[in-house]
């Protein structure tokens, strides 16, 4: 019966192939979209793992760039039990670097799709750190990410850089804003930010597109570059006991209700919830695509069963039961689901591998065995469901009725 069912779906290869395309594309969508979701989870997880302190922002500010806190808040936070170091920061969108604004870079990269996409993702941001307090932080993301001496990573900002024109660039920006001789920026080179020339003293690389778009400088220098003479964007808080970061964050929020103290656990949870919602939206989207795939299978199997209705009558006259006919047609559609699953998952694997060649900044599409298993199961279930109605239609006729109907 298995071989018989297999042969039946090969009888009309073109029609079968078209139905398979119809079902394999939604499966490709399922695997592709969820591999993106996996990739985003991994990227954000890796990013957040590099940040171990608590960040205090204005309530509802989506990121430090859009936050504004009073200058006296760091001193107040220092008095909270469990707090070890409080380091104020300011953040802002960078002025044009090397006379290249976001619009100019985007226009310049119009011919290159990868660069065009990255132009938007890589909007440079300037952060000004209080070099005196920041030097005491043991969990500083950018300091830890400084390239080793062997790779000419230079040095990080310290107390001596107060008010200086020294900056630490990401490796990405070092490559993006090259010197006039087309060599990447390195410690000792100059970089023009806005109308001022700055000294590059260090190069870092976090391998996260969410962190590598930042130019680090002293807070007083950043105030001038960002034209922000007063106030702060956020404070970075390091705890005596990193395990108690959630507790300290709650204490800060309780003491200063207008501000949001976000531990990385909280970020992880918020992001997890966001991704959960995204997964539901993706699930809904692919469900619609799968529904279209089911319609394709139903249509193919209906046409196939109508064409072969006499054959089912013949099988019945030879002792096949209704359940046998039902099983045969369902098996055929399950086979189609299986093949579509293999096609969809195969295409997704190829597509993801190609896409990963063009993605950078730590974002990689991730296809897990579970995702492939899910794709296969969805495809087989969808294919089987699509065959149930045609199978029922084929099985319910009395043998002679089916033969007469089929020979009309």
């Amino acid at each position, binding site marked *: 019966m298995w071989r018989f069912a297999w042969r039946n779906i090969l009888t009309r290869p073109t029609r079968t192939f078209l139905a398979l395309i119809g079902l394999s594309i939604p499966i490709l969508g399922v695997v592709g979209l969820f591999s993106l979701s996996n990739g985003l989870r991994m990227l954000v997880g890796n990013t957040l793992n590099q940040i171990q302190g608590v960040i205090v922002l204005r309530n509802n500010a989506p990121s430090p760039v859009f936050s504004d806190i009073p200058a006296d808040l760091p001193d107040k936070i220092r008095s909270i039990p469990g707090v070890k170091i409080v380091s104020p920061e300011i953040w802002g969108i960078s002025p044009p670097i090397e006379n290249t604004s976001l619009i100019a870079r985007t226009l310049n990269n119009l011919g290159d799709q990868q660069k065009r996409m990255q132009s938007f993702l890589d909007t440079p941001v300037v952060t000004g750190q209080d070099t005196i307090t920041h030097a005491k932080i043991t969990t500083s993301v950018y300091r830890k990410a400084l390239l080793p001496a062997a790779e000419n990573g230079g040095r990080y900002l310290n107390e001596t850089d107060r008010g200086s024109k020294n900056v630490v660039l990401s490796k990405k920006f070092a490559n993006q804003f090259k010197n006039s001789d087309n060599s990447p920026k390195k410690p000792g080179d100059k970089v023009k930010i806005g109308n001022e020339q700055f000294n590059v003293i260090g190069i870092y690389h976090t391998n996260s597109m969410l962190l590598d778009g930042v130019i680090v400088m002293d807070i007083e220098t950043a105030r001038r570059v960002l034209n922000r003479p007063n106030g702060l964007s956020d404070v970075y808080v390091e705890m005596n006991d990193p395990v108690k970061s959630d507790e300290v964050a709650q204490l800060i929020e309780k003491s200063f209700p207008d501000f949001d103290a976000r531990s990385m656990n909280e970020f992880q949870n918020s992001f997890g919830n966001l991704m959960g919602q995204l997964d539901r939206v993706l699930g809904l989207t692919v469900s619609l695509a799968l529904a279209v795939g089911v319609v394709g299978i139903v249509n193919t199997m209906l046409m196939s069963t109508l064409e072969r209705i006499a054959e089912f009558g013949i099988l019945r006259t030879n002792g096949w039961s209704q359940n046998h006919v039902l099983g045969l047609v369902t098996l055929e559609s399950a086979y189609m689901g299986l093949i579509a699953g293999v096609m969809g998952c195969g295409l997704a694997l190829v597509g993801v591998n190609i896409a990963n060649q063009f993605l950078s900044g730590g974002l990689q599409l991730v296809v897990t065995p579970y995702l492939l298993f899910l794709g296969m199961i969805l495809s087989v279930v969808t294919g089987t469901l699509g065959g149930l109605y045609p199978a029922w239609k084929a099985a319910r006729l009395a043998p*002679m009725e089916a033969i007469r109907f089929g020979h009309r």
Partner: protein
Amino acid sequence: MSMIETHDVTKSYRSGEGVMEILHGVSLSIPAGQCAFIVGPSGSGKSTLLHLIGAMDQPTKGRVVIDGQDLTKMTEPQKDLFRRDKIGIIFQAFNLVGNLTALENVLVPFLPRGITPELRDRAKAMLTKVGLGHRLTHRPIQMSGGEQQRVAIARALVKNPQVVLADEPTGQLDTRTGEDVFRILRELQRELGTTLVVVTHDRRFIQPQDLVLEIEDGLLKK
């Protein structure tokens, strides 16, 4: 002892908004091992009667009893089993499955339960008996009408049924091929001791010892 009995069998079909009665109370009895011919003009109800005997259709009224079992009291799954175990059917249009080889077509009744080597050997032997031992792997489209009908005969007889029903088995064959096919059918019927019921309007194949049942306008004449 009767193998086949019908008692006052009536069969009606819906036709448009009305009802058309094809059989008007047919009662007959066919002994076991007999070769019986149901003859009559086209549209007289011969094939309908054959289908009722083969549990392939349900009478509107009356009873059909095969080997002591009342078909009209059977459920659909019981009828499936009955057809599988006791009835072999041969159609005018051969009705082979196009995707399957000659051997696989003969094995069709056993496909859902799985094919054992013993069944395969039995099917090969049956095809050899009908003269197709060299055509086992050919598909219907690669065979002539006479060969296809011989495959159908092998399929009907491979399960050693108690009753073989043949609905115009030579209707689509030329005279000589028809004679060949009928000769094979009759030889196998004698060899296996099967009860054979043939619907035909071709009286050439009737022999003196055969039972002839003549139907006209849905009524049994003789």
